[in-house]
């Protein structure tokens, strides 16, 4: 098992706010890595640095290295658009494109990347992988807003899968969902790790314990502790990690 992503000495922030401080972390291939930590500690900023979405905020800055399969994604010869295709993202609130049909939501990405042949197949395949096909196959032309929140989130996952990414970043994908929909997404993530490398930000420690192979604990922009999930939860080495997972702060 190799590392899909290696982060070396990453610093990032907005204007004069320094959010991420000297983060170095290896993210293993075909595993689920969870990022936990109190609100505002920089979890979202961190994952957004992994697909170069962070830099789209006008005041944002970043330096350090993020190696994807050994190649620094911040090198000047790298096209951020290509990185964003290879590293997909699912957001906190389900955000399907409201002006497009369910079908077009999924087809949007492949069309952009010139995968115009077999569009129907790609759409069906992505929806199946996201465990949504059976629920929507008869209403592909409908508006995505007619779906429930959980279905919308799976649609967003299908949309991300359709461009054949290698890594998928989940930024608190279940925080807007009820427990049943949450369980479905969690099952889905466990299935997806066969073929994808997954990073998931979560506030919910049970969720991290249930699905993650590795867990990283962030505090005020620093990586405090990183290891196998079982070790982090059962046997934390750092006092601050222990305090956090036992609910003594955060």
């Amino acid at each position: 098992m190799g590392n899909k992503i290696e982060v070396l000495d990453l610093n990032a922030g907005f204007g004069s706010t320094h959010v991420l401080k000297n983060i170095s972390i290896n993210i293993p291939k075909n595993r689920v890595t969870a990022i936990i930590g109190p609100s505002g500690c920089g979890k979202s900023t961190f994952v957004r640095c992994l697909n170069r979405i962070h830099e789209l905020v006008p005041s944002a800055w970043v330096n350090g290295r993020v190696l994807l399969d050994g190649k620094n994604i911040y090198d000047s010869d790298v096209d951020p658009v290509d990185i964003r295709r290879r590293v997909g993202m699912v957001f906190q609130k389900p955000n399907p494109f409201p002006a497009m049909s369910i079908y077009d939501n999924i087809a949007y990405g492949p069309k952009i990347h010139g995968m115009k042949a077999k569009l129907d197949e790609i759409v069906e395949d992505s929806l199946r992988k996201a465990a949504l096909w059976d629920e929507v196959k008869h209403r592909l032309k409908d508006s995505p807003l007619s779906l429930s929140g959980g279905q919308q989130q799976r649609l967003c996952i299908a949309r991300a899968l359709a461009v054949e990414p290698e890594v998928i970043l989940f930024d608190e994908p279940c925080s807007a969902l009820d427990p049943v929909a949450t369980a479905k997404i969690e099952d889905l993530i466990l299935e997806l790790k066969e073929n994808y490398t997954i990073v998931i930000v979560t506030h919910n420690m049970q969720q991290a314990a249930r699905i993650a192979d590795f867990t990283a604990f962030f505090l005020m922009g620093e990586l405090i502790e990183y290891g196998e999930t079982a070790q982090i939860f059962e046997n934390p080495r750092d006092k601050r990690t222990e305090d956090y997972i036992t609910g003594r702060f955060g």
Partner: protein
Amino acid sequence: MNMLSRKAMDRLFTFFCIASTALAIIPLGSMLYTIFVKGFSVISIDFLTKLPTPAREAGGGFGNAIQGSFIVVGIASIIGIPLGIGAGMYLAEFPNSRLSRIVSFTADVLTGVPSIITGIFAYLLIVLRFGGFSALAGGVALATMMIPFIVRTTEEAMKLVPAELREASLALGAPRWKTSLAVVLSTARFGIITGVLLTIARIAGETAPLLFTAFNNRFWFDGVMNPVATLPVMIYTYAISPFEDWHAQAWGSALVLVAMILVLNIGIKLAAGRRW
């Protein structure tokens, strides 16, 4: 002050507020009533489709003015809508550039330009240069009025699109231009269409910009470089004429114009309320 007179003051004030509202509604009611009563008897198929006749000669209509209004507003839309939407998109997509700030301020200033001034402008720019009053000049005058409103309405509609949608598209590896066209613009389209239609309703009744641009014409439209009759200018000309029957026709065309504008206005607002 004792309690009694304090209460009295309060009553008086409430009465003042109610009376103010009534005083604003009375003229509106009077206008709509008069237009309907005086205009309705004039309206007929002939009136809507025939050419005007000289004063004191029975029959005739405003067909050419109705046609001309559509043409001049159409020309203004062809010029104003693409330019306005383009500039509005720029303001929404690149809000932090220096150009954006200058454009935004200038567009605001332009919304306050008196309508008669846009008429002078189009006169100097088009009529003087191309040797005569023309439908084109009228269209340019109205487009000048339209553009700042369309810029604003486009910008606002696009800024209402949640940032997450934009990010979702970018995170799929879509380039920025594609994101703003396929996601932001298309999500904002209802807002933009509403704004554009309201702007059209607003300029369709403008008279001052047309007085010495589109001018007037007693015949049907015959080319964009020739003068053309429009409803508002006809209403004005007929209203200030000394002839009784022209006054009556002015009311008739006022009814046509008001009906079109109100239907457009109310229709758009109802439709927008239901989110189409």
